[in-house]
C-alpha cells in the first residue's frame, strides 16, 4: 500500500524576530511545496492537478486566535495569488472563516468584490448557515452556505496549534469553523467529533488539500496565544491526506515540546485521539509507518 505523502517546507528567515513574514519567501515555499506534493516541475502543473479551472475554491482559514495566532493573511493571500497566477479566476476564490470580526482581528481586509478575490465570513449578510440540520453519526449541525453552496473544492489552511482539549488543532478541526455549533463538540478530546464532522458530506466531498500554517507554532497552552510557548518554526505542511497532515503537525508540536522540556501530550492525557478515529473511518493515515514525509528548505 502506498504511503501518504506529507511535504514539510521550511523557509529560512521567513519569520522575522518581530514575527513579520517575508511574502516573497512564502510564495517560494508554496511553489516548492506544491511541486513536491504532486511530483511536478511547475506550480501551475501542480495546481492544475488539484483543481479544475471552473472550480470555486474555498480557502478555509482559522482566525479565532487573533492577530498573533491565526492563519496568517500573508500566507492565505499568497496562496490565492498563486492560484490566480496559474489560471484560477480570482472571482472563484474565497478566503473565509466563520465571522468577519475574527477575520478583521486576525488582520484580514474584507472584500466581497463580485469579480475579484473574496475575503469574508459566514456571518456576512446574505450568507449564513443552512436552515436544515445535517446529521451524520454524532454530528448534527447547520453548515455554512459558503461551504455548501459556493465552494466546490476546499483547502483547509489551518494554523497549527496545541489544543487543551483536542491535543492539537490543525487541518481537520479547522472545519469546526464551517458549522454553527462547534462548542458542542469539545467533549472527550473532541473525539469522535473532529473525524465525524470531516466525514460528513459537505466537508469530505469537497476537501482537496490540507495546508498547515506552522510558521509560528503554539506548542503549549493553546489554542490561545502565549508568547513564551510560541515557536517561530517557519514551516508549511502540505498533504492530500488530511489525517497524515495533522499527524505530522502533531509530531512537530511534540518535537517542540520535547525540546523545551515539556511533557508529551500523551503524558498530559490529551493525545489527539481523533487521528486514530479518523484513520478507522478511512479518512487517511495516522501512523508514522504509513506516512512518507518529504522535507525541504528554501
Amino acid at each position: 500500500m502506498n504511503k501518504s505523502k506529507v511535504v514539510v517546507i521550511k523557509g529560512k528567515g521567513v519569520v522575522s524576530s518581530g514575527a513579520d513574514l517575508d511574502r516573497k519567501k512564502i510564495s517560494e515555499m508554496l511553489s516548492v511545496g506544491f511541486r513536491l506534493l504532486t511530483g511536478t516541475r511547475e506550480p501551475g502543473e501542480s495546481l492544475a492537478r488539484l483543481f479544475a479551472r471552473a472550480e470555486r475554491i474555498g480557502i478555509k482559514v482559522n482566525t479565532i486566535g487573533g492577530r498573533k495566532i491565526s492563519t496568517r493573511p500573508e500566507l492565505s493571500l499568497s496562496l490565492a495569488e498563486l492560484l490566480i497566477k496559474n489560471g484560477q479566476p480570482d472571482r472563484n476564490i474565497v478566503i473565509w472563516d466563520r465571522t468577519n470580526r475574527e477575520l478583521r482581528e486576525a488582520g484580514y481586509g474584507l472584500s466581497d468584490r463580485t469579480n475579484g478575490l473574496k475575503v469574508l465570513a459566514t456571518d456576512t449578510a446574505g450568507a449564513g448557515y443552512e436552515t436544515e440540520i445535517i446529521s451524520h453519526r454524532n454530528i448534527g449541525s447547520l453548515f455554512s452556505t459558503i461551504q455548501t453552496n459556493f465552494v466546490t473544492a476546499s483547502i483547509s489552511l489551518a494554523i497549527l496549534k496545541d489544543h487543551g482539549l483536542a491535543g492539537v488543532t490543525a487541518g481537520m478541526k479547522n472545519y469546526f469553523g464551517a458549522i454553527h455549533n462547534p462548542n458542542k463538540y469539545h467533549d472527550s478530546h473532541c473525539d469522535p467529533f473532529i473525524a465525524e464532522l470531516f466525514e460528513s458530506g459537505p466537508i469530505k466531498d469537497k476537501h482537496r488539500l490540507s495546508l498547515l500554517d506552522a510558521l509560528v507554532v503554539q506548542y503549549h497552552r493553546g489554542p490561545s496565544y502565549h508568547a513564551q510557548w510560541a515557536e517561530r518554526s517557519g514551516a508549511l505542511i502540505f498533504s492530500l491526506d488530511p489525517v497524515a497532515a495533522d499527524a505530522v503537525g502533531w509530531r512537530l508540536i511534540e518535537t517542540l515540546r520535547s525540546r523545551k522540556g515539556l511533557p508529551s501530550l500523551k503524558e498530559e492525557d490529551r493525545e489527539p485521539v481523533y487521528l486514530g478515529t479518523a484513520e478507522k473511518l478511512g479518512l487517511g493515515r495516522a501512523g508514522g509507518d504509513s506516512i512518507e514525509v518529504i522535507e525541504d528548505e528554501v
Partner: protein
Amino acid sequence: MKRRRFCETLAGTGFLLGTGAAHDLHRVWTFEDVANLSHVEARYYKKHPDRETECLLCPRLCKLGDKERGYCGVRQNDGGTYYTLVYGKACSANVDPIEKKPFFHFLPGTDAFSIATAGCNVNCKFCQNWQISQVRAEQVPHFDLPPVEVAAAAARTGCRSVAYTYTEPTVFFEYMYDSAVEARRKGLKNCVVTAGHIQPEPLQDLLKVVDAIKIDLKAFRQDFYKDYVRGDLQPVLEAIRMVSQSKVWLEIVYLVIPTLNDAEKDIRSMCRWTAKEIGRDIPIHFTRFQPMYLVKNLPPTPISTLESLRDIAIQEGMHYVYVGNVPGHSAENTYCPRCRSTVIERFGMQVKAMAMNKGACRSCQYPIPGIWA
C-alpha cells in the same frame, strides 16, 4: 438578500453583496455588527494563570483559554475575564399561560411573561426549541430587554409571574437573577423551566429569588444522559433534591420518547426514588414526544404509553401525576388524592374550572400542595 443571490454574488454573476447602493467594499456588513452582544462579567467562574478561566455555573466546568466560548455558546473568556454575552439580550419574550411551562400547581390560570436568550448547556437530540437553544449568541435575532424592562413588561401585560424558559435559563443566569429581583420588586413571582444541569452554589443563590422551578428529568439512566442529552444524570438529581428541600415549588416533567426512555422499570425506579427522596406531593408530568431536531425517526409517543407510565407512578404512591401534550386528556386534571374529586379541570393550557378553597379541595378540605395565589 436571499441565499441564492448571495451565492450568485460569490460566483461573480453580477450582484453586489449588501443592501445599499453605496456599498462599502472595505467594510462588509455582518450579522455580528448588529448582534450587539453583552459584555457583562459572569458571576460563577474562577481565574487561572495564563488568562484561562473555569466556569463554575454548570457541571461541565468548562476550562477555557482566551477567546474561547463555553459549551453553552453564550459565555466567553476574553483576556482572562469570563463574560456572559446574553445579559439583557432576549431572543424570545411572550405572554404564555403558566400551564404551557407546564406548571399545574403554581398560579393556575394566570399568565407568565416568558423570556429566553440563546444557548443551552446540554444538547438533547430531541430538543423542541433547538433553533434558539442550540445556537451561539450571535446566531439568533435578539433585542435589548434589560431586567427592569422585563419586570415592567410583565406587570404591564397583566402577568402574575416571569418565566425563564424556552432555552436553558442556567446559561443566562445573571440576566435571570437580576430580572427576578426586579420582578419581585413589582410584586411578581418568578418561575424557572430548566434541565437542572446546574452547580449547587448558583442554584442555592437562585432559590433565594424565585418561587417555582420545573425540572425536565430527561431519563433515569446515565447512559441516556450521555448519549441523548450530552450531560449527566446525577447533578440533575441533586438539583431536584436541593429544590425540594427549599421553599421553592418544584414540578418534574418527563418527556417520554418511544423506545429510548419509556422502559417501565426505569419509570418505576424514578418514581420510587422521587417518592422516597423528594416526596409524593411533587407533581410529575409525563409528556408526549413529537419527532424533532435529531430524533425524527421515532413516532410520537402513543397515548397508551403515557397512561401506563402514569399508572406506574400512581402505583408507586405519587399523588399528582399528569399526562402532557394530549389536550383533552382526563389526566390533565388535578384530582384530590383523598376524595378523588376534580379540583382543577384543564383543557390543554386552559383552566376550565377550579374547585379549591384556600389551597384545599373544596369537597373534603384536603390540602393540595402548591402556590395558589
